[in-house]
């Protein structure tokens, strides 16, 4: 009777944890995999695992607020006759009208313009709201080609050929029927209310040799004026970057697995692709090996939240960063003021990710006119501009502390890592040692 005198406490399985069990039950009950928005929610090595050393005996800091520390970035200097100049090295990532409401797209344009940076269309074409309110607008060229037309291409400031995104390298898009409103359906030439599955491959080219010819065509159509970006999901960053350069990119955009999607299978988001931190050094190495670092600009995205993240990405060799999720939060996404409504949807503020269902209490990821009207595009745009400016200031603060007169002068030597994993991925020494796993001896 020892089991009564020494009862075994209930022991939860690390393998079959609560979330896993609930997923099995959910799949069994519904017969469909989980679809959600956002990027990976698992913990992966990230910028938090890096620290700046700052100035000391051998490095002189710049005076905060007095000595100049530039943040300007020029994109598209390789082939385009009209490169883009941005005041800050932080751009707004591509997010579709369809996934987002019209007012949300307008707010992104307004905020980006106030902060002196660019915003980007998405898988659904260019709307008048965003073109009208965006001083610099990047036009995405996606596999679906929804709404693609030469007029919008000519009035764009740059073209971004989307090969993939960090949340789902190798995956296409997904917009469930409840978000296919009349306007979205009309822009995409689709029946209203169907589940729209965007293609994962481009319809008229395969591989980097074809892409080189596709880029030639796009440049010929637009008179060689516009920078052409190639956006990649974090997958094989060294070779993908090298091939993008070979295909003729002016700018490479590299998106890690923390980068958000409007809607994709949970299994895809959590199990395919590389963390942002693991993408940057191989991509920079490819550019350096080709003698193209700073000639083909590198934009990094996926989990950028603060000026510290921006500074760390730049120090690792990026020319700029891009934000999506953080920009939506700045607009008002997942704001606790809607907590009661998040609860009613079975979620809570900070966790809401069923963006594909179109019932967003914050009125951002919806096509419901009533919900969408909750977002004031002027106020939300101002909030985004404030946030962008704070991030730029934070980036400058760190750069000055490291003695840099331009944020691009930050370098790997300014960084150390807190974990062995981050040290290996970022190629900077473990703090307090000279050790970089795989590169130097212990």
């Amino acid at each position: 009777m020892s089991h009564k005198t020494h009862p075994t406490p209930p022991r939860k399985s690390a393998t079959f944890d609560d979330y896993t069990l609930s997923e099995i039950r959910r799949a069994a009950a519904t017969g469909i995999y989980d679809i959600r928005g956002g990027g990976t929610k698992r913990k992966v090595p990230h910028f938090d695992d890096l620290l700046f050393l700052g100035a000391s005996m051998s490095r002189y800091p710049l005076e905060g607020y007095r000595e100049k520390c530039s943040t300007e970035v020029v994109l598209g200097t390789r082939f385009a006759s009209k490169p883009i100049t941005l005041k800050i090295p932080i751009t707004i990532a591509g997010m579709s009208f369809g996934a987002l409401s019209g007012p949300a797209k307008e707010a992104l344009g307004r905020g980006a313009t106030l902060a002196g940076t660019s915003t980007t269309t998405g898988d659904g074409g260019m709307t008048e709201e965003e073109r009208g309110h965006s001083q610099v607008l990047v036009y995405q060229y996606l596999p679906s080609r929804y709404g693609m037309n030469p007029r919008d291409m000519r009035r764009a400031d740059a073209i971004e050929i989307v090969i993939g995104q960090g949340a789902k390298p190798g995956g296409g898009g997904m917009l469930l029927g409840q978000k296919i409103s009349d306007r979205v359906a009309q822009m995409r030439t689709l029946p209203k209310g169907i589940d729209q599955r965007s293609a994962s491959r481009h319809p008229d080219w395969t591989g980097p040799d074809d892409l080189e010819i596709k880029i030639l065509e796009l440049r010929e159509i637009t008179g060689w004026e516009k920078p052409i970006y190639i956006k990649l999901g974090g997958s094989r960053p060294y070779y993908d970057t090298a091939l993008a350069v070979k295909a003729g990119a002016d700018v490479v955009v590299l998106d890690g697995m923390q980068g958000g999607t409007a809607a994709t299978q949970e299994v895809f988001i959590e199990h395919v692709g590389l963390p942002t931190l693991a993408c940057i050094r191989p991509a920079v190495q490819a550019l350096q090996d080709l003698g193209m670092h700073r000639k083909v600009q590198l934009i990094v995205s996926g989990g950028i939240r603060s000026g510290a993240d921006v500074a760390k990405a730049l120090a690792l060799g990026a020319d700029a960063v891009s934000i999506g999720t953080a920009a939506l939060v700045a607009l008002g996404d997942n704001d606790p003021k809607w907590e009661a409504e998040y609860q009613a949807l079975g979620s809570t503020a900070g966790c809401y990710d069923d963006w594909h269902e179109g019932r967003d209490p914050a009125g951002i990821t919806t096509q419901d006119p009533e919900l969408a009207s909750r977002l004031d595009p002027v106020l939300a745009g101002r909030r985004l501009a404030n946030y962008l400016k704070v991030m730029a200031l934070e980036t400058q603060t760190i750069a000055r502390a490291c003695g840099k007169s331009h944020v691009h002068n930050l370098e790997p030597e300014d960084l150390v890592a807190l974990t062995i994993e981050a040290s290996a991925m970022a190629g900077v020494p473990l703090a307090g040692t000279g050790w970089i796993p795989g590169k130097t001896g212990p």
Partner: protein
Amino acid sequence: MPVIDLATTPLRALNQALHDAAAPGHNDTAFEVLNPRGAHAVAVGIAAPVSVDVKGSVGYYCGGMNEQARITVHGSAGPGVAENMMSGTVVIKGDASQYAGATGRGGLLVIEGNAASRCGISMKGINIVVHGNIGHMSAFMAQSGTLVVLGDAGEALGDSLYEARLFVRGAVKSLGADCIAKEMRPEHLAVLAGLLAEAGITDVKPQEFTRYGSARRLYNFDIDNADAY
């Protein structure tokens, strides 16, 4: 009529001349292009009602994103001819490679020879008339517009298509997911007769064709259809 010889003139100059035709003060309405020799991106991004006669075969993306122009290729065309065409007409006297008319949103593409695989992929309103046969996976995810084939179609015709209409006169090797033969009603015969006339085809009757379209079974996800994807 301006004659542009690609043996001596760069591609950039050709396309710029064709783009300039849309600007006020330009009166040229007909162009001839010599020695294309398989060049890529010939006559792309035109936005004016001009005619362009290309005397020879072209490479990738000839007539890409065309608006209003009438482009005739007196030869064969490489991949992606008339991709994303908005309006106007592109005529290929020879054969066309893969992805002919991909994502086209309007206008008419006539291929007097055969077209390879993925003809009309993701088409969004373009009309395509092929005198000969078309290859596999044609009209994949086709959204809107009409594909007319006087000859045979390869495997998996119309896979995952939406509301595009397909008319095939010859044999279809196999139909793709969610594509079915449909009844030919008077309105379809009228559309087909109109397109045949527009393509200059007089010796073929609309009644000789079979109509194919979407069964619309995959429009909204159902786990029990998973094996169809």
